[in-house]
């Protein structure tokens, strides 16, 4: 039996009086990838944030890579990474400085050169020394992806990764996802581009009002 990358046991998440995730259970084997779909406001971003340990379920247990996401968050965090609507960057640092900071926190060997390589790869090297405040929407997305790649996580959480990327960037993103998968990373991909998503993943979870339903 292969280990589980994600295992949700009856999790729910409440905001104020509203349940964004309701009694959700599912599991994903390590190495396999999951497509997350659902209407606007169905809870995709919330679920990804919970898996990334940026938020925690109000009730229920979530295990990621065998760790309880709430109690063992410290052990879990080095192995998951999230790209979402909020980009986590410091607006007044440059792209290179932002990445370098992550690299140092992660204890990457030779941070400077891996920053350079990643910026190159995401097509940002000509703007490495611009403050993020001056970036366009797509450039921000690219930088966020670079940050995820820097971490080389075991579980990669991608929230609408194709949004804002130009066609070339979109193709590259697909390739990146395949590369991650080839290295054994489980990808959880939330997107509204269902065909594209289906071609990249093996499993699917469709949410409606925070509940699991079969896609229609």
């Amino acid at each position, binding site marked *: 039996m292969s280990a589980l990358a994600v295992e949700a046991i009856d999790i*729910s998440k*409440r*905001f*104020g*009086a509203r*349940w964004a995730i*309701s*009694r959700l259970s599912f599991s994903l084997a390590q190495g396999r990838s999951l497509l997350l779909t659902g209407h606007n406001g169905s809870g995709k971003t919330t679920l990804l944030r919970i898996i990334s340990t940026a938020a925690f379920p*109000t*009730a229920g247990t979530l295990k990621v890579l065998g760790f309880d996401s709430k109690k063992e968050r410290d052990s879990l965090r080095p192995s998951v990474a999230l790209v979402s609507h909020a980009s986590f960057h410091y607006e007044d640092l440059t792209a290179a400085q932002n990445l370098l900071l992550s690299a140092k926190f992660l204890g990457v060997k030779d941070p400077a050169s891996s920053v350079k390589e990643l910026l190159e790869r995401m097509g940002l090297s000509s703007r490495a020394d611009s403050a993020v405040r001056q970036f366009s929407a797509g450039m921000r997305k690219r930088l966020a992806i670079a940050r995820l790649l820097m971490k080389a996580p075991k579980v990669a959480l991608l929230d609408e990764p194709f949004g804002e990327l130009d066609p070339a960037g979109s193709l590259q993103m697909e390739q990146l996802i395949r590369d991650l998968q080839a290295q054994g990373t489980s990808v959880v991909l939330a997107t509204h581009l269902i065909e594209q998503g289906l071609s990249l993943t093996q499993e699917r979870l469709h949410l*409606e*009002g*925070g*509940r699991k*339903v079969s896609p229609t």
Partner: protein
Amino acid sequence: MPASIPLLLLLALAVMVVVHVVVPKTRPILWKVSAALGLVMLGLLMYLGMFYAPPEAFMSNVGRILYVHVPYIWMAFIAFLMNVGCAFAYLMKKSWVTDALAESSAEVGVLFGAVGVAMGSIWARPTWGVWWDWDPRLISTTVMLLSYVGYLALRSFTEDPERRATWSAAVGILSGVSLPITYYSVRWWNSLHQVQSSTASVDKTMGSVLLWGLVTLLCFLFPFIVKRYEIARARQTAAMELPPLEAPRPEAA
């Protein structure tokens, strides 16, 4: 007054609150008993304070307000101590019970403290000639109250229950630092106001009337705290119910 007395009072309160929380059977009875006892004791306190105790040496009869002024402020102290305890307990192990207790003790503490300060202020008018004076004891007490008002404001401005609980536990502990400061302020900054009296500096009968007043008000403090606690719990459980297992049918869209 020996330092053990306030600690004993705190202990008594803690035991009663724990009993109330842990033993459901006592819930409808205990607070009523306490309140009733308090009412009876209050009647006696009036008599003792007005007629039995000797007039205060410097302030004559106005000084008799002492027997409620001091107990009120002490009750606020005790409630805030309880708040700090609950805040620590919450950060150690999350529990909605300690969160609710923290909320109720802070609110009741602010209430009792405000009444106590108001009485002090009423007292100040005839004795010092002003409503208020720049005195470390008065200021540190007021500042302590303000820090708990900030605590309550934060609670009411935060909607998410989990965040509210952890944030306010953190703020509660930091505010708790003002308790010993208030207590010692009289010694640090030499004060107009009375320092803590020792048994030596206070007439025997005055001391015992004061003690009577303290116990009386403790009998009121307890029902206030548990009633407020029950309100907080009710609000929590209303927000806490899990969603139904199946999606409600009609809302298929």
